[in-house]
């Protein structure tokens, strides 16, 4: 099976799960013997796709061809973030204006225009795409090669923006999913969203939960923990409560700050780390100051690679207060490192992981209770840590098994007679 895959590039920081998921999928497919041609937009200087760098570090990956197409677009930033990135890039690369599309939609269109050309050149049996930004490219590629089109959906615009959904993006999503021969959603929750809000035929959607690349998250490698003195005098190191994700509406950073305020009253020795960046960051800084917890709340900014591992291994608990979480890879990463995790009840990951606390994102009391319990009772923390870690070692949370399910979805796209996943 030769796959022509259209992905979207992404800065080297832990800003979102799309690249992690894409790279994981590519690795898994390669291990399953599939050939993958991954087309991704070009990155600016110093910006790399960490997973792909990993592949090339082992020499050229057999079966993988990489095409890069220029783009300043960070995967999940939204239209304003694109404009900002574009402006920054034009400042950076002098005299380059005109090389890059003037807005995100032009960028998507340009990517699609190049897709047809690549489809004519690259031999393939199936075309795969990831979210709306690449759907146009997939449709263009199919119109040239006539091969079946698979659409991976990681999150819909409703998940990212709620009522603030951009109607043009919603329309692109709908068009891409309707055009696709098969769809792969990363959770039942996301499948339901596609059916209920975008009117997609449920029989066309396979659910494949994500797994983790155990190489990228080898938790056995010792790292230097982040140790911060307790804010209350004389009680040693502070237990860290971690938020890791984009500081945007979808991820519920505001819930985390409110939670921090409540936890501070109950566990005064705790400190809080917000790792990531996004449009809500200034508001979060302000709110932390307002709650009087600035000195114990650390805004680490975007973190990457070894720093992510350090944070997971240093945190006493990781909290995902996301308003919407179609899957939630952070939970798997956290558990892999033995850090207990609190996930939204509606998250895709909650469908498959047993050893994580679940709470509604709006139920701050419930989340406070759970965090405080983990901080106060080492026995509980150890139990969650040990069980979470051993659960994540199951093959279903690796790369091969999800890749195997995805391959089956490809086969069904190629010959619809193949049975369901």
């Amino acid at each position, binding site marked *: 099976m030769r796959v022509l895959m259209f992905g979207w590039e992404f800065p080297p920081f832990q800003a979102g799960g799309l690249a992690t998921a894409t790279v994981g999928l590519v690795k898994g497919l390669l291990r399953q013997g599939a050939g993958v041609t991954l087309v991704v937009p070009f990155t600016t200087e110093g910006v790399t796709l960490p997973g792909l760098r990993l592949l090339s570090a082992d020499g050229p990956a057999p079966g993988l061809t990489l095409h890069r197409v220029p783009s300043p677009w960070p995967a999940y930033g939204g239209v304003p973030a694109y404009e900002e990135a574009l402006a920054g890039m034009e400042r950076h690369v002098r005299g380059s204006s005109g090389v890059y599309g003037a807005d995100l939609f032009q960028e998507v269109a340009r990517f699609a225009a190049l897709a047809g050309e690549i489809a004519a050149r690259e031999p393939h049996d199936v075309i795969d795409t990831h979210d709306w930004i690449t759907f146009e490219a997939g449709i263009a590629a199919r119109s040239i090669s006539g091969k079946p089109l698979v659409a991976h959906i990681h999150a819909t615009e409703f998940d990212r923006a709620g009522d603030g959904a951009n109607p043009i993006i919603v329309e692109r999503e709908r068009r891409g999913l309707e055009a696709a021969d098969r769809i792969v959603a990363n959770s039942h929750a996301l499948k339901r969203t596609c059916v209920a809000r975008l009117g997609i035929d449920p029989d066309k959607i396979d659910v494949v939960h994500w797994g983790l690349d155990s190489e990228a998250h080898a938790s056995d490698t010792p790292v230097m923990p*982040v*140790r*911060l*003195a307790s804010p209350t005098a004389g009680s040693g190191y502070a237990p860290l409560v971690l938020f890791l994700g984009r500081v945007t509406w979808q991820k519920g950073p505001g819930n985390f700050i409110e939670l921090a305020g409540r936890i501070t009253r109950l566990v005064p020795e705790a400190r809080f*780390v917000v*790792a990531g960046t996004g449009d809500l960051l200034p508001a979060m*800084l*302000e709110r932390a*100051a*307002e709650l*009087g917890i*600035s*000195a114990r709340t*650390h805004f*680490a*900014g975007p973190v990457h690679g070894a*720093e992510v591992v*350090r944070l997971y291994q240093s945190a006493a608990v990781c909290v995902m207060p996301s308003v919407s979480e179609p899957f939630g890879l952070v939970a798997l990463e956290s558990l892999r490192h033995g850090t207990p995790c609190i996930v939204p009840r509606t998250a895709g990951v909650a469908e498959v992981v047993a050893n994580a606390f679940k709470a509604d994102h709006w139920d701050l009391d419930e989340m406070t209770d759970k965090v405080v319990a983990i901080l106060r009772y080492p026995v509980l923390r150890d139990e969650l840590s040990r069980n979470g870690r051993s659960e994540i070692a199951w093959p279903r949370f690796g790369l091969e098994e999800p890749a195997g399910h995805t391959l089956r979805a490809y086969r069904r796209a190629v010959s619809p007679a193949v049975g369901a996943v």
Partner: protein
Amino acid sequence: MPDICLYAQVHQPYRLRRFRLFDIGTETEPFDDELNARIIRRVAEKCYRPANELLARLLQTADADFKVALSLTGTLVEQLRHWSPETLESFQRLVGTGRVELLGETYHHSLSSLADGREFREQVVRHRRMIREVFGVEPRVFRNTELIYWDGLAPVISGMGFSGAMVEGADKVMGWRSANHVYEAEMAPGLRLLPRNYRLSDDVGFRFSQRSWDGWPVTAEKYAEWIAGAEGDSVHLYVDYETFGEHQWAETGIFDFLAHLPGACARRGLRFVSPSTLAERAPVGTLSFPHPTSWADVERDTSAWLGNRLQYAAHERLYSLRSRARTAADPAALETWRRLTTSDHV
């Protein structure tokens, strides 16, 4: 015809580097030495050295009464010593003429007056000791960070032996009164207050190169004419020293302006006086500053540093660490902490 009191503030903070979560608890210094060296050398080249040379020449050739007052922060003097010692020497030569008066202030250009009285006094005393050691003179007149002043500070300044203090001639305080006089402090009758004439000061400091302003271009002749036309006993012109060559580039003609100012003033019978001479004059009245006032922004208060909750939280947190910095095993901790008190950081 009013006298002229010309004063310039000379300050550079220790600029901070990006200090990340992962740097906490490591030996990493919060200051960016490379950046600091670069900025000090650039400002020395563009402003301090040419301005000092010009002043030295004017003090030699212009009318015998031309004089100027400067105030150099401890953080500036230290950095000059490290990265541009020849510039520090040129300041020393200027002071050596006996016609460049140096003022007192906090060593670290801090907001300590608003936070901690003991710390404030220690920083002022330390600054005075530094001025004595480096320049061999004794500051007589005080200027607080960014001209922050309010009634409660008067007895403290007076108690440390200063005869006068520079204050902002803010409308809300001056009311119908003119800033062009010497006043006395309501809470410390021995302390003379020298209010800044912010219009004439900002004509040079802010508006000098602003072509949309109907006063542009400001020539030395035109400016001397404005001063000569001002009512009152003395016009107090306070600017940042970086006005000359850094805020206003040499291309704007700022150095030519300064070069011709003493002559233009002399031709109109305007005389230059030093702040300490002014502080010996009899006051025309009393000024009361019920709230902290400064020369910053249009608000002329402390909102530039403590205007939002985030700044206030950082300020509170910083000063709450004072006793820990003082008792820390590492003697460098207190100095690091003090460098963080520099007002530029909030």
